[in-house]
C-alpha cells in the first residue's frame, strides 16, 4: 500500500493490492455473523423494557442471551448466514492491483465462510439448485467516490426475512397513505415467519432497480437514526407505531415489539410513478464495516 505522486506532481494515486480487499471482506464476514451490532442488542433491551406480552419479553431476553452465547463460543448468532451482500466504495484516487477486483471480493467471502464455520446457503443456478459450497458468488455493489480510501460493508442477508420483501409501483395520487398501507400489508403477510423483531427498510422513488437498492441500504442504518428530512422522519415514526400495533410481536407469538426500527430512503422518480419497496430484516440484523 503506497501513495505515489503522478508525473505532473498534481494528483495522488494510492496503490492497493486486491488481497487487502480479500482479507478485509473475510474478516467482516466472520465478525458480522458471530456478533450482532451494539445498536441491535440495545434495541432488544429497549424493546424488552416496553413489550406488553410476557411471552414476547421472554423471546427478547433469549435473543440477548443468544448473542452472548455466540460471542462466547466464537460461532454464528444464526445458522442462516445468508447470501452475502457486499458494498464497496472505492476512492477515485485508489489503483487496485494484483488481480481481479470482483474475484478478490468473492475470495474474501469464500475465506470468511470457511474460517468462521458459517453455513453455505447459495445455489449456483436458481432452477438447477446445486450448492456452490463456498457461499459465493456474493452480490457486490461498487461505487466510485472521492478520496483515496476503500470503504467496505458486509451484510449477510438471511433467507427467511428476505423472502417476504416486496415492491410495487403505486399511483402518485396514492401518496403517503398508499405507502403506509403497502408497508403494513407486507409486514402482516410476513407475520412470525420473518423472525421479528424486524428492522424494516423502505425505498421510495427511483426506478424499478433503484427502489429496491435503497430499501436494502436503509436496513444498514443504525437503529434510532432517522432520515434527515423531517417529513420522511415523521413517516418512519408513524410506520413504526403502526407496525407495532399489528400484534405480531417477537417471533409472531403476539405482542408490541414487531419492529425495532423503520428506515426510509428516497430518490427522485418519474412523474408517472410512486415506486415503493420493503426490505425485511430479521432480528439477526448483521452488518459490519471497515475502511482500508
Amino acid at each position: 500500500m503506497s501513495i505515489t505522486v503522478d508525473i505532473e506532481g498534481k494528483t495522488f494515486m494510492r496503490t492497493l493490492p486486491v488481497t487487502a480487499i480479500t482479507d478485509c471482506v473475510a474478516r467482516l464476514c466472520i465478525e458480522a455473523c458471530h456478533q450482532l451490532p451494539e445498536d441491535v442488542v440495545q434495541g432488544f433491551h429497549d424493546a424488552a423494557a416496553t413489550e406488553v406480552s410476557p411471552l414476547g419479553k421472554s423471546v427478547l431476553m433469549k435473543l440477548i442471551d443468544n448473542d452472548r452465547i455466540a460471542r462466547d463460543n466464537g460461532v454464528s448468532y444464526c445458522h442462516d448466514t445468508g447470501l452475502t451482500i457486499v458494498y464497496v466504495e472505492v476512492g477515485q484516487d485508489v489503483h487496485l492491483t494484483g488481480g481481479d477486483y470482483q474475484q478478490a471480493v468473492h475470495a474474501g467471502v469464500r475465506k470468511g465462510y470457511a474460517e468462521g464455520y458459517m453455513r453455505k446457503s447459495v445455489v449456483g443456478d436458481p432452477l438447477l439448485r446445486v450448492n456452490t459450497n463456498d457461499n459465493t458468488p456474493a452480490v457486490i455493489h461498487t461505487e466510485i467516490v472521492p478520496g483515496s480510501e476503500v470503504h467496505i460493508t458486509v451484510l449477510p442477508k438471511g433467507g427467511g426475512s428476505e423472502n417476504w420483501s416486496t415492491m410495487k409501483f403505486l399511483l402518485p395520487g396514492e401518496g403517503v397513505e398508499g405507502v403506509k398501507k403497502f408497508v403494513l400489508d407486507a409486514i402482516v403477510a410476513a407475520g412470525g415467519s420473518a423472525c421479528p423483531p424486524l428492522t424494516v427498510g423502505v425505498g421510495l422513488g427511483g426506478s424499478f432497480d433503484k427502489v429496491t437498492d435503497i430499501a436494502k441500504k436503509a436496513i444498514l442504518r443504525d437503529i434510532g437514526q432517522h432520515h434527515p428530512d423531517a417529513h420522511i422522519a415523521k413517516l418512519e415514526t408513524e410506520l413504526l407505531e403502526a407496525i407495532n400495533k399489528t400484534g405480531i410481536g417477537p417471533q409472531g407469538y403476539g405482542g408490541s415489539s414487531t419492529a425495532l426500527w423503520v428506515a426510509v430512503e428516497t430518490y427522485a422518480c418519474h412523474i408517472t410513478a410512486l415506486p415503493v419497496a420493503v426490505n425485511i430484516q430479521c432480528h439477526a440484523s448483521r452488518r459490519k464495516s471497515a475502511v482500508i
Partner: protein
Amino acid sequence: MTTHHLRTPLSDDVIKTLHVGDEVVLSGTIYMARDAAHKRLVDLLNAGKPLPVDLRGETVFYGGPGPTKPGHAIGVVAPTSAYRMDPYATVLFDHGVKAAIGKGDRGDAIRASCLANCAVSFSAIGGISATLFSCITDATVVAYEDLKTEAIQKLEIRDFPLLVTNDAHGRDLYEEEVTKYRKLLSRGEVAS
C-alpha cells in the same frame, strides 16, 4: 404457563396433555429434515415406496445446520420457517409422524392435520442457533447425504426449549395471540 419436561417418542396420551402456549423442554431422539428431504420423502410415500428412515411415531425438526466447529456435536442450528413444509407435513402426519419443530405461523391444513392425527407442531425461537446447538449432544447423517446441510440427521437432544403452537385440539397459538394483541393495542388498552 405450564412447562412439560418430556422425552421422545411422544405418545398420543402425552400429546393430548399439550396445549398452545405450553412450554416443552424436550430430550431424546429427533430427526432433522427440511425442504429438499421433505420433497424426497413425500415423493416416496406418494409412490407407495418405503422411507429410508422409519419416521412413524417420531419428531421432525425443520433445520439445516452450519458446519461443525471442532469440539462440538454439530454446527449452529435453529428451525427454518415451518410454512414451507406444510404441503409435505400433512402427508407425514398422516403417515404417523407425531410432532414437528419449526418457526413461524402455519396454514389451516396443519391445524386440521394435528387435530385429525393427534399430532403437535412446536416452535423454537428462530435464529437462536448459538443457543439451540448447545442442546444437541450427538448428530448422525442417516439419509440423503448428498443434500449436505439438508441431509436427514438423527439428533440426540437434551433440554431443547420449545413452545406448543399447534396442538392436537385444533388450536393455533399464532392466530390467537396476534389477534388478542392487535385488538388490545388498537384499542389502546395496553401501552407499548
